[in-house]
């Protein structure tokens, strides 16, 4: 299968921040969720993937084009929307559509009209009068209606009210049914990632700390409740992300679950009471708090 994008050894240094040694690829037709706190490097990675930024080291290939050299050709097939991207306040959605339509020959007019209806947007109104949610939807409309092969979305649902968020997610879910289209989207909102993504990449302090299928990623993590006094003994084990004791109760968050772990915990003096899968949100918070290793 060809890769929608593939980066290797990617480094980008800024005075206050550096993205370091990232190796990542997305097979065509897949959806990848990019997770990380503010400043983890998500926007930098997306900018590198659109050719807007040049790497200090490493290579980037997007849809068969080497970036940033072939960014013009690549951007013809990329739909990129980021949280810090704004449209012209004094101009209407119709005006923006006309501009974008003339650049992208594959512009799907019928789909654009459908999205206008679905998002309940007023196309003739200047965007200055739009709410934040409407502006985000307008931007998504401009990205989606050009029918890109690769969709790069930086925090698409940030700041949206629950209704707008649901509309945007539904639309994205529809888009994702098209198996030819690849998507990389970053989000603070792990629920969104959990709902939409096939795979998850976790960035922390400029490094890619984990990348796996969603199922495998979630499967690696467990929350284990134990009774006993061996908390101090096990807290150094590398597969355990967090060990917290409250009296005789011990809560353990496991980052690399294996079937023999309960046995080994028993041997260390901890009797396992229950084992639960963890939600991505919980995994995310735990991983960040414990230094990023996921």
């Amino acid at each position, binding site marked *: 299968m060809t890769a929608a994008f593939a980066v290797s050894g990617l480094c980008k240094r800024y005075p206050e921040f550096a993205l370091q040694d990232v190796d990542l690829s997305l097979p065509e037709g897949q959806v990848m969720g990019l997770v990380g706190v503010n400043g983890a490097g998500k926007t930098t990675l997306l900018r590198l993937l659109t050719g807007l930024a040049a790497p200090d080291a490493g290579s980037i290939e997007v849809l068969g084009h080497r970036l*940033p050299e072939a960014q*013009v050709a690549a*951007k013809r097939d990329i739909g990129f929307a980021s949280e810090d991207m*704004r*449209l012209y306040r004094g*101009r209407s959605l119709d005006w923006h559509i006309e501009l974008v339509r003339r*650049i992208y020959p594959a512009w799907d007019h019928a789909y654009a009209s459908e999205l206008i209806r679905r998002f309940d947007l007023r196309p003739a109104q200047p965007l200055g009068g739009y709410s934040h949610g409407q502006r985000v939807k307008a931007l998504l409309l401009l990205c989606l209606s050009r029918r890109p092969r690769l969709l790069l979305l930086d925090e698409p649902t940030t700041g949206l009210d629950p209704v707008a968020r649901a509309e945007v997610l539904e639309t994205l879910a529809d888009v994702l049914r098209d198996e030819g289209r690849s998507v990389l989207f970053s989000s603070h909102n792990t629920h969104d990632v959990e709902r939409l993504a096939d795979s998850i990449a976790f960035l922390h302090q400029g490094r890619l700390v984990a990348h796996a299928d969603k199922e495998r990623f979630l499967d690696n993590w467990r929350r284990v409740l134990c009774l006993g006094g061996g908390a101090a003994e096990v807290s150094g084990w590398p597969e355990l992300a967090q060990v917290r004791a409250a009296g005789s109760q011990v809560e353990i968050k496991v980052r690399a679950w294996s079937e023999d772990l309960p046995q080994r915990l028993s041997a260390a003096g901890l009797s396992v009471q229950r084992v639960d899968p963890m939600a991505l949100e919980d995994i995310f918070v735990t991983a960040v708090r414990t230094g990023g290793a996921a």
Partner: protein
Amino acid sequence: MNLNRPVIRLLILKDWQLFEKQLAAYVLAGLGALTLLGLARPWAFYLGSLALIVVVVAAACFAISNSLLVERKEQTLAFVMSLPVSPLDFTISKLLGNLLTFGVPFCVLLLGTLVVILSTPLPDGLVILATLLFGHILLAYSVSLAVAMQVESEGWNTFAMIGSMVLVNPFLMALGQIESIQGPIRQDAIAWSLPAALILGAQLLVSVVVLVHTAWWHGRKAAFY
């Protein structure tokens, strides 16, 4: 050099549409100023020439501000950069678009001014002073445009624009100190002295060099950031 011409055209058209309303106001004001000059009365001459300078300077500053600074400040730049353009395409579109929105009124007003001097009892030698004045505005504009494309800080950009334009006053005073320029101004013949020709040559040369350097600087960049 591989330019994406259709998209460059569209980007220029976009800037033109975004700036059209303001440009229309400047063009109307410029026409009004030229009409005042056409009344051939002393008060109208002073008012008209003052209005003309204000219009040219304001149009220069607003052209830069609208197409570069506002785009950056309002974060619409990210939208433009996400379109299939290279940094060179983007730079060329900004340079050409600005030269169009500023260059057209600039040329019309320069010609209008020269016509005023040549068709009224004013000494024709004033043509030299007027040309140097417009030369200064062109230079100030080129520098401001280059700074706006190079520097993100709004403060520095405002400083570059206002500073370079305001320098027109000391520049005119300095010209007044050079006898070989000041003398011919009062005569009814256009006699370019060596210093005057050198100053105009330097204004044009520096303007071109600044703009070409800006284009080259951005053109060799592989990416925007």
